[in-house]
């Protein structure tokens, strides 16, 4: 499937893998794809989201910190070492795999021969509410409908 990706779309996947490893997560999820999309701040997809990479990383960290606080663990102000890279391969979550499927559908719908970052963006905006990317977008106060308007996607979910 990756051979149908544009260079920009491939970069998103590579950056998503970097983000996953840096955080010490075991699978590449939709939240990592969202961060990956922000690695190129000048791209139309990143511009449409209207947040920068640092803010999005901080948002994810806040979600983690609050979740830990809910079970009585306070990591505020504690510096921990980076998690060393694991030699194991890093698979995609099922949520991330469905983002790819939706991006392909989006490309087909718009009669694009290749999958571009904008198709990823529209696919990410359509994530279920439980999905980490949707949770992160809520935390960052990103309105999917407004982003969809800016990038010129369909007004409604089209699944």
């Amino acid at each position: 499937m990756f051979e149908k990706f544009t260079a920009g779309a491939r970069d998103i996947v590579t950056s998503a893998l970097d983000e996953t490893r840096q955080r010490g997560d075991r699978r590449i999820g939709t939240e990592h794809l969202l961060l990956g999309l922000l690695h190129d701040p000048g791209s139309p997809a990143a511009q449409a989201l209207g947040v920068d990479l640092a803010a999005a990383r901080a948002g994810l960290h806040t979600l983690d910190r609050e979740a830990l606080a809910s079970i009585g663990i306070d990591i505020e102000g504690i510096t921990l070492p980076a998690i060393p890279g694991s030699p194991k391969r890093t698979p995609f979550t099922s949520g991330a795999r469905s983002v790819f499927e939706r991006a392909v559908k989006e490309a087909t719908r718009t009669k694009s021969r290749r999958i571009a970052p904008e198709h990823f963006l529209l696919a990410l905006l359509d994530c279920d509410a439980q999905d980490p990317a949707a949770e992160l977008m809520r935390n960052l106060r990103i309105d999917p409908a407004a982003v969809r308007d800016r990038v010129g996607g369909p007004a409604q979910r089209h699944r």
Partner: protein
Amino acid sequence: MEANELAERLRSNDPAVGLRAVSALHRLAEQVETASVRQARQQGWSWEQIGDALGVSRQSVHAKHGKREK
């Protein structure tokens, strides 16, 4: 997210918060392990002693952390 929003989600037993906490705990445990094993080695602990403290075998702790020495 506002503090009262979080409190609200906890009251409503939002499983997303608990599940995220579990995943964050996994990462936190890895980080604490990495830092503590490194310190223990610097202070002269043997792999056997570290394995005993972690409740795993000497081999598994060495396989995981040994190559990071040097």
